[in-house]
């Protein structure tokens, strides 16, 4: 089979199963049916049954993976449309995300120590709550394994997309700024996708939360994390 044909098949199969998963989730909105859980599980099943290599699938679906780049660029649209709203709330955004990023790194570190995780695993898990490309950068900076970090970022996204609405209800988050920032900070793009379901304002705050979280974690990765690791591991 030619590469073009492989990509054509992979693109279509992935899309069809993704669409079907979305329909299922809409009809039965249970955590287990979340599209980012159900769709990959079905695909994994197909790959295993048909004795394909995971790398074959990665190649065949590379068009969709590629779209993550342009999609990140497209986040400029909600920011542009709601620039005045963001300017008005800039202090809330900066304070909440500063708190969020520190809690993300701190809680991951503490829980890793409690669960006795060792070097690579511990370091790679620290930048997990930010968007994949930047998480990889931070992971490299602090001496983690980028591929492992990617897995943790995905698991964070799936988890966050599922528990996000529960956190919002439990914490009685009423304002779009609080809802959006919680989702964008906690579960990067997947959280932002959820935030857009709440409304355009939630989506915008989530987008800016996700970007700020990435920027701040990039800074912590250079300054704070190395000294934290020195204290805790040595």
């Amino acid at each position: 089979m030619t590469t073009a044909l492989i990509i054509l098949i992979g693109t279509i199969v992935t899309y069809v199963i993704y669409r079907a998963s979305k329909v299922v989730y809409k009809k039965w909105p249970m955590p287990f049916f979340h599209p980012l859980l159900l769709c990959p599980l079905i695909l994994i099943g197909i790959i295993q049954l048909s004795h394909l290599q995971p790398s074959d699938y990665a190649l065949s679906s590379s068009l969709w993976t590629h779209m993550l780049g342009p999609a990140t660029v497209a986040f400029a649209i909600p920011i542009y449309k709601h620039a005045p709203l963001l300017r008005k709330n800039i202090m809330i955004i900066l304070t909440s995300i500063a708190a969020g990023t520190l809690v993300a790194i701190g809680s991951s570190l503490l829980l890793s120590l409690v669960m006795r995780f060792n070097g690579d695993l511990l370091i790679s898990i620290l930048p997990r709550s930010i968007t994949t490309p930047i998480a990889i950068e931070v992971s490299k900076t602090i001496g983690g394994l980028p591929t492992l970090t990617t897995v943790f970022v995905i698991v964070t996204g799936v988890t966050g997309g599922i528990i996000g609405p529960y956190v919002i209800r439990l914490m009685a988050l009423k304002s779009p700024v609080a809802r959006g920032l919680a989702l964008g900070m906690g579960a990067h793009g997947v959280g932002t996708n959820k935030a857009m379901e709440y409304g355009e304002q939630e989506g915008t705050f989530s987008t800016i939360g996700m970007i700020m979280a990435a920027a701040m974690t990039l800074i912590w990765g250079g300054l704070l994390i190395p000294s934290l690791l020195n204290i805790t591991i040595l």
Partner: protein
Amino acid sequence: MVRKTITMLSQLAIIHVFYFAGVGLAHILSLPVPGSIVGLVLLLLSLFAGIVKLEWIEKAGGWLLAELLLFFVPSAVGILNYKEILNWQGLETVLLILISTFIVMAATGFTAEKLYRRKRKGGHTQ
């Protein structure tokens, strides 16, 4: 239908121009930031400067953002490459991420909600 497809594809092309410009710039200047984020900044600046009109990219941009989960699917399937974490420690890791994500969302949302209410109250008394 044909017209819609052409609109969508040409808008996608414009967004790609910014994406590749961002990737190129990040590479040339060896920035510590991914090209897609540089592309985001470039597009944002172009929108503010009026070089790009919102209507030129809004349809395709809206589609990209709405279908974001689809673009994560291949990475999620990529977990297959890490069969070794599908053990007890893997389960522990998922538990860790669940607890931590819960705390992070709660802390972020709590801070924002408190500040928002305080700001609104302050606004009323002034």
